[in-house]
């Protein structure tokens, strides 16, 4: 492979890994910080992607939208729409044990997929939405590398915000809730409120990831999401990287996306008639990887580390 195409490949790889890192940090906010089980990541992701697409694409007779708004508005919309859905789900399941939340999130992801598939007027159904604008069109940033920079900037931003939140009293309360609920309540904190905030924040971040994806990929269709695989990959990334640790989430995203891409390269060597089998084989390998991690190193590569005190000691 010549250098230029290797570089192009690397840029594309890192861009995807970056988007997954955003998703993994979103999941970390829910699962790593507070132990809330969400397996509807693909749903929040899709809501973000479609919201941003509808807000930013030019007018089209086929579906609603075409509002032609700028990229930034699209991303804000993506984040808010996903947060709103997170709020509804979080409120319903707030007082139930985590298995219910898991089932409810799987349900919401499925509903969202059905909705996108069937409501042509809004999403153009299975035909999908094409021509989603890349950010900064017409500027020097309008290159794959430029887009990578945008994604990296968002990864850094999300990381920074989450680290601050986690180190602040807010994060301290979340940790306290995870350790001992009655004692946290006895310390005057509303457990339900903090939990819900974490869930909504996580959902918002996933929506942001969806928005980034839409603009990077330029085309959305219900099939493009492979809902379960999307959700599943993010889970494997977080568990492998180390849940409770944002650096772990980022590392996990890069490593697992690397493994996933490598398996693609290898299975691509198989004759084309085995294409579907090859795809299945890849999922199988990732599935086995997850089980191995769960059995042998459930804390992941970078285990959770408590944040440093932010107060200045005298």
């Amino acid at each position, binding site marked *: 492979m010549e250098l230029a195409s290797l570089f192009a490949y690397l840029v594309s790889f890192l861009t995807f890994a970056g988007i997954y890192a955003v998703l993994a940090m979103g999941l970390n906010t829910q699962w790593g910080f507070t132990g809330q089980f969400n397996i509807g990541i693909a749903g929040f992701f899709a809501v973000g992607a479609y919201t941003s697409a509808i807000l930013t694409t030019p007018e089209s007779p086929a579906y609603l939208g075409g509002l032609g708004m700028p990229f930034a508005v699209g991303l804000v919309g993506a984040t808010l729409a996903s947060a709103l859905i997170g709020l509804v789900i979080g409120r319903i399941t707030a007082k139930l044990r985590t298995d*219910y939340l898991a*089932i409810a999130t799987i349900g919401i992801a499925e509903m969202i997929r059905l909705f996108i598939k069937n409501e042509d007027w809004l999403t153009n159904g299975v035909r999908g939405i094409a021509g989603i604008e890349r950010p900064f069109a017409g500027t020097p940033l309008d290159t794959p590398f430029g887009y990578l920079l945008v994604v990296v900037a968002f990864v850094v931003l999300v990381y920074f915000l989450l680290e601050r939140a986690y180190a602040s009293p807010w994060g301290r309360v979340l940790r306290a809730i995870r350790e001992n609920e009655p004692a946290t309540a006895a310390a005057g904190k509303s457990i339900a409120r903090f939990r819900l905030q974490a869930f909504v924040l996580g959902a918002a971040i996933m929506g942001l990831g969806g928005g980034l994806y839409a603009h990077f990929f330029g085309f959305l269709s219900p099939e493009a999401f492979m809902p379960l695989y999307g959700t599943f990959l993010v889970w494997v990334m977080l568990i492998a990287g180390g849940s409770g640790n944002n650096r772990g989430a980022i590392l996990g995203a890069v490593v697992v996306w690397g493994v996933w891409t490598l398996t693609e390269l290898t299975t691509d060597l198989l004759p084309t008639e085995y294409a579907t089998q090859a795809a*299945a084989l890849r999922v199988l390998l990732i*599935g086995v990887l997850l089980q191995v991690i769960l059995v042998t190193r*459930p804390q992941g590569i970078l285990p959770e580390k408590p944040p440093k005190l932010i107060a200045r000691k005298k």
Partner: protein
Amino acid sequence: MNDIIQILIYGMVLGSVLSMGAIGVSMIFGILRFAHFAHGDFMTLGAYIGLTFIAVMGLSPWFALPAAMIGMAVVAVVIDQLLYRRIRRTQPVILLISSFGMALILRSLIQLIWGSENQTYASGIQFPWRLDVLGGLRIKPDHVWIVLISLGLVAGVHLFLTRTRMGKAMRAMSDNMDLALVSGIPAERVIIVTWIIGGALAAAAGVFLGIDTRLHPVMGWTTLLPVFAAAILGGIGRPYGAIVGGMIIGISMEMSTLFISAAYKPAVAFAIMVIMLIFRPQGIFKGTL
């Protein structure tokens, strides 16, 4: 009127399928305390095991059913012993993640072994029986068999749970795990039997689904949500509740096609589940959650 009865019959067929799955989910939850996310794929695998018996041995789907049930029971026990047993001592939520991963492993295995194309058990169209009541009802024999065999299996599970020592031990463990241990009930053996029953019933659900429609690697996964909805509706951890829940969800899903697009059938199951979670999270029959 005619339409409604026709749809009611479809609803009962779907309800039978869901009940078979939901009983397993409910029993596994009662004893192992986690929602088993690979259960839909247990159904799929059961259906495909049935397919192999039909293709290789030339059995009719009805005779392949017991074979598929036995095969799936074995697979379920092997999965438990190889994987779930190792992480059982950690928090139940680790089992939840693991079962989610297992769902994908099973699905990709199915794709590898049987391919991802749609398949059917038997080619050709089955001629329905025509009944000259209510202006001519048409009933497929397959549907009658599905409902009848489900009833038979439910009765079997009932007899097992109420008449055998092992069945009672399962209920005892679901009631009060600590007291069961103190009484000398061998927990590991009860867990294995739970998987045998859960796996066998999931296979039955899969084979029914295959007979009624077609086989596809995601057939079980797309049914998982209604199955959970049925289990929650009946009260998780309550196998009898699961049957009632399955029927209510199945019939509601089919009935909904009178009013909204058939594409949204799963949404009906989801809506019922959410309403249940808001107003009566313990289910109709006071489950263990």
